[in-house]
């Protein structure tokens, strides 16, 4: 069976620090897969390895049956692997229309157009409008991103990743830092992600993980500890030990 995304024996060291150890992860097409683990387990490194920000010392990455280990960040995006960031990585001066417009233009091959304005292509406009509508951003679409409420920025963060039309989406703590009053909007947006998009959720928030995921992988010290459906993982004594142990250490 081909998986949407697969890592085979992934390995990464920073000097003497071994942050990813022989990590094998298989994510089925259309899955809602969560990757959890205590602080310092190496979750962020995994995301950076998957998206191509850093290169592994060993192991392979396979996206829908194709080896992408040697591909650049951009080449992976073009092949349908996109991510959101734990801390918003947006364009402070740009409006949501422009932000989404960039991703859409780039995907449709119009990103290098220098002779016509954004807004002059109907198919780009339609897609921008569609994304902004789905993420409830129409009311603020012409405001500079830096002036938006945090919850709206968080929605834009996810909307921007979706605008690249990923087949596999990596969600890095989507609800991080969002005030309680705006939290419901984010959770609704996450729940409403199209079914055909495979999602890997990296998250601290156990409520979100257990309400969203149909499969959970638990990482400890850069290695895979347990993988299975949510109820199994919740009952697993090793997982309990890790989380309780972390509590006891602190």
């Amino acid at each position: 069976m081909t998986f949407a995304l697969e890592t085979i024996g992934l390995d990464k060291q920073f000097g003497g620090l071994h942050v990813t150890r022989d990590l094998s992860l298989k994510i089925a097409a259309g899955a809602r897969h969560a990757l959890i683990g205590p602080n310092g387990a190496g979750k962020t490194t995994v995301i950076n390895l998957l998206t191509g920000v850093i290169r592994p010392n060993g192991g392979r990455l396979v996206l829908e049956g194709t080896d992408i280990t040697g591909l650049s960040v951009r080449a992976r995006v073009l092949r349908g692997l996109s991510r959101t960031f734990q801390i918003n990585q947006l364009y402070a001066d740009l409006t949501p229309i422009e932000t989404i417009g960039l991703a859409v233009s780039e995907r449709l091959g119009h990103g290098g157009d220098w002779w016509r304005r954004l807004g002059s292509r109907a198919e780009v406009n339609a897609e921008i409008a569609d994304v902004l509508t789905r993420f409830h951003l129409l009311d603020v679409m012409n405001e500079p991103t830096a002036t938006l409420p945090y919850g709206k920025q968080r929605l834009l963060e996810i909307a921007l990743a979706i605008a690249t039309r990923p087949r596999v989406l990596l969600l890095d703590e989507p609800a991080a830092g969002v005030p309680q009053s705006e939290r419901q909007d984010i959770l609704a947006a996450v729940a409403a992600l199209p079914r055909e998009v495979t999602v890997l959720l990296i998250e601290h928030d156990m409520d979100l993980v257990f309400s969203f995921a149909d499969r959970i992988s638990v990482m400890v010290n850069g290695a895979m500890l347990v993988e299975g459906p949510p109820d199994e993982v919740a009952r697993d004594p090793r997982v309990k030990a890790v989380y309780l142990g972390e509590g006891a250490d602190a």
Partner: protein
Amino acid sequence: MSADRGVGEISLRRGRWNAAEIAFWLIAVASIFVFTGRYLILTEMAWLGLFALSLDLILGYAGIVSLGHAAFFGVGAYAAGLLAVHGLIKEPVLALVVAGCAAMVLGFATSFLVIRGSELSQLMVTLGIALLLRELANKFSDITGGFDGLQGIVIEPILGLFAFDLFGKVGFIYCLVVLFVLFLLARLIVNSPFGLSLRAIRNNPLRAAAIGIPVNRRLVAIYTLSAFYAGVAGALFTQTTALASLDVFSFERSADLLLVVVIGGAGYLYGGLIGAVVFRILQDVFSSWTPQFWQFWIGLVLVLIVLIGRDRVYRGVLWLPRLLLRRLAAMRGGRAAATDRSAS
């Protein structure tokens, strides 16, 4: 769907001409007829404005800093000078384009060194390239004339029709037309998806790559274009003054240029042009005031602008004109209301 139309409508609004822009260019044209004795300084403002526009394209839009933009200015200046001296291309407009292209080739070749690395390394690499070129021009003095500069530059009439006159009127109109044409091109570019992607790269290069923008390719493209603009500015300098000497490559020229863009503000295209006008006026006023110490005052203005903030300085300067405009609008509004009342 109405949301589509809304999106398209709002996006297109960005590139629309507003009243202030139209007024700016009308004033520029009017200056031909108003300041008839001041063509030399107006000409300097025009080519300096173009030079500053060139820096603004990389600094204000793509976030690339440069302390050696005079490299391209100098290549354009010497190219135009050499073409004229050796009679290779006699027609100035064609020579201008060729000179710009010479600078563009250098821009493309060096872009790969400049775009990688931090702002500090960008400053050092650009500075280094300008110094290198200056020394090369010095070394090959049989071609460039060395310290004495190129001798015997004679510029033929523009398009074979308009000869450069003693007062510099033709030269100024020529510079203004070239500036306007290249400004239109720059304006088209910055409002396009390409221009938008440059702003995204300046804002957040990490995320730009993460949504599929080819970051390096875009930076190479804008750096190359910027070099073309700077080369054309240098060629205009040579064609209007019939001079090309080593100081076209000088560090002061690059540093002054940065000053011009800081004075006018980066990232909205007019900053370079306004900065050029303000800078030359300040230079003129201060140097007639205190010939030895004018740089002191320029320095003070720079420090004030950076410390107080450009917006606040300009709000102060523009306070009176704005007040008058408001009064005028209120008066007109009042009169319109009065005629409305009498009509009803």
